[in-house]
């Protein structure tokens, strides 16, 4: 070896000769799949954006729900002036919160001739009608302890919309960011929950065999053979309020999201169950299971301690691919108006709104779909990369 690679020093040779752990091999293998690595970074980016949505809201001063009907369908990169009502509400709230300070501010505003109201009480309201920059200049000149509050109010007089506004004048970017939360949250939650269900059912079927296996696998096959979309639509159209026992459990706020997660879980555990059953069927015959059984291990210990670690790796692939699929199903159901209900934004129901507006605002219909495409393709590549990485046949040491 030294003769072939004279550049290698002792440390590098030691590095080469050291045994690699399994995780290291898998990691190195994974790194070679460029698309999967890119996919992982894209997913990470989206997760960071989704988690920090409230922070972004604070920094930009935009929120996902405030409407502005005078500024609908604004193209990307436009500045929009806030309506009179929005400004006056902000001032009203400010006055209610600091009644004493307001009088000082009003007097200063009038004495410095920044505004000339008919009645002195209206000074702040007149200030609110100024442009953003003029209002900020005025704040600089007056002397008060509430300067930062006023500046904050003035900043809201004008908003900058990177991706424009939608049919109700809401900021598209903020809605997409909050939609990321909902869509990815639903996708990941469904994939994890259905993996748990599949793990449980597959383990039962594979470990006990016999009639348990027959019944569970018949159910699995039956569900797998169904065309999912019509079935999902029928189930999603149910009014949960009509089920008396569920009525108390469900709170009204995010009911549609939980309902959606629940429905998607019912119909997406089958592939994991078959995978787990297959692995456990073959694991059951292995010597180490026989050994621990001889040592007196219970069925529970056998399954959870000795079999689950062995099925985790293939399950990871299945879960990753499941996230992409769940995001697509969530989007499809929301697109049909049966998934996440507005005003909660999700990528699917943003498309639902936008499909009627393709003449006025085609842009609105394009962006949410692009995000769905990016995220799903990333999850699919990630799953593909993981599959290659953990596949012992493809392993290179």
């Amino acid at each position, binding site marked *: 070896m030294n003769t072939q690679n004279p550049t290698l020093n002792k440390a590098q040779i030691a590095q080469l000769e050291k045994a690699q752990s399994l995780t290291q091999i898998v990691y190195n293998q994974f790194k070679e799949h460029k*698309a999967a690595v890119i996919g992982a970074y894209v997913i990470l980016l989206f997760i960071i954006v989704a988690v920090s949505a409230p922070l972004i809201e604070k920094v930009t001063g935009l929120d996902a729900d405030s409407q502005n009907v005078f500024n609908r369908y604004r193209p990307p990169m436009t500045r929009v002036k806030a309506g009179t009502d929005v400004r006056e509400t902000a001032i009203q709230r400010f006055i209610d919160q600091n009644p004493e300070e307001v009088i000082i501010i009003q007097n200063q505003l009038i004495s410095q001739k920044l505004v000339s109201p008919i009645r002195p009480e209206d000074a702040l309201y007149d200030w609110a009608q100024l442009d953003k920059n003029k209002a900020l200049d005025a704040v600089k000149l007056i002397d008060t302890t509430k300067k930062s509050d006023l500046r904050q109010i003035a900043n809201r007089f004008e908003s900058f919309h990177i991706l424009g506004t939608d049919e109700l004048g809401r900021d598209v970017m903020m809605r997409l960011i909050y939609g990321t939360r909902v869509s990815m949250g639903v996708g990941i939650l469904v994939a994890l929950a259905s993996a748990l269900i599949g793990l449980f059912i597959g383990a039962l079927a594979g470990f006990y065999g016999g009639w348990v296996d027959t019944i569970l696998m*018949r159910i699995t*096959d*039956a569900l797998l*053979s*169904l*065309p*999912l*979309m*019509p*079935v999902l*639509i*029928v*189930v999603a*159209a*149910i*009014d*949960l309020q*009509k*089920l008396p026992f569920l009525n108390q459990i469900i709170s009204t706020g995010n009911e549609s999201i939980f309902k959606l997660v629940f429905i998607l879980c019912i119909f997406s555990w089958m592939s994991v169950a078959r995978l787990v059953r297959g692995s456990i069927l073959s694991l059951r015959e292995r010597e180490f299971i026989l050994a621990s059984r001889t040592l007196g291990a219970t069925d529970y210990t056998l399954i959870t301690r000795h079999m689950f670690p062995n099925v985790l790796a293939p399950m990871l692939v299945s879960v990753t691919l499941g996230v*992409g699929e769940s995001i*697509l199903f969530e*989007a*499809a159901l929301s*697109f*049909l*108006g049966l998934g996440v209900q507005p005003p909660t934004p999700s990528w699917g129901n943003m*498309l639902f709104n*936008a*499909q009627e507006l*393709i*003449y006025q605002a*085609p842009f609105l*219909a*394009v962006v*949410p*779909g692009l995000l*769905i*495409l990016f995220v*799903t*393709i990333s*999850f*699919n*590549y990630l799953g*593909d990369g993981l599959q290659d990485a953990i596949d012992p046949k493809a392993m290179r040491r």
Partner: protein
Amino acid sequence: MLTFILRRFFQTIVVIVILSYVCFGLMNLMPGDPVELMISANPRITQEDVTRLREFYGLDQPVYKRYFAWVSDISTGDLGYSRTYRIPVTEMMLPALLATFILSMASLIFSLIVAIPLGILCALKPNSKVDYAVNLFSFAGISVPSFWLGIVLIIIFAVNLGWLPAGGYQTTGMQYSSWFAEMMDKGKYLILPMVSLSIQSIGRFSRFTRSAMLEAMRNDFIRTAKAKGLSNQVVIWKHGFRNALIPLITIIAISFSSIFSGALITETLFAYPGVGRLIYSSIIGNDFNVAMVSFVISVSMVLLMSLVSDILYGVVDPRISYK
């Protein structure tokens, strides 16, 4: 073989029966009560009338009794009436089923025509630039939401370019002079839904063709055929592709139900009067009888088609043993 067919057939029937029963029960849980809808237009109706109406339509009976009554009606060929359109469901079902069949088959054939050459191209030059490009394309195809692709296609081809109609089935009020004119007109309406429905199957099929073809080209008889001096074309098509075809048939059999799933969304988006749109619009419009019948019949069709292709699979590949 016969026992296998009988068992599979029996299983399919059981699934259909259970599914229709569950679906029948679920329809009761949907918002909007049929009697309430009936009386909403009539303010002078009394409580006695409501009870009488409920009795008349059998709505006071438990679910299983109503289910059996419904099934016995259906088995005599009486599919009931649509509450919204006031016409027999049979009249709505047949054209809808035909339209969906045309759309699904067109999409299946189109995706095979596109996907198989792509897959073979990749398999012949693995890890080349073409292979990576097609791989990216297939991944995009699997990941793209078909309804969004539909919207984008409408924006490009119907709104901006104006080449193709944005939705529908045929030009309204059109009198066809010949069957050819009819086909051309309907075909124009079929293109966009077909493409947006096919993109997912194209992705799946081309990846599958690639792996099946790679597997087939690794066989010893391929080497022998090449050594005999056969031309490349003969080796690829006669020896390689024929063997790759067998796994391909399985994936086609499985894809019936996913194509039908996709057809539902595509039909809704393009206002294409197929059975998927019928299911969706009748559920949204509280037309429960239509929803039930169209759902059960179309799902049964899909299951039976999968059953048939399962059996055909055994005929094509004699190595498959039925147990």
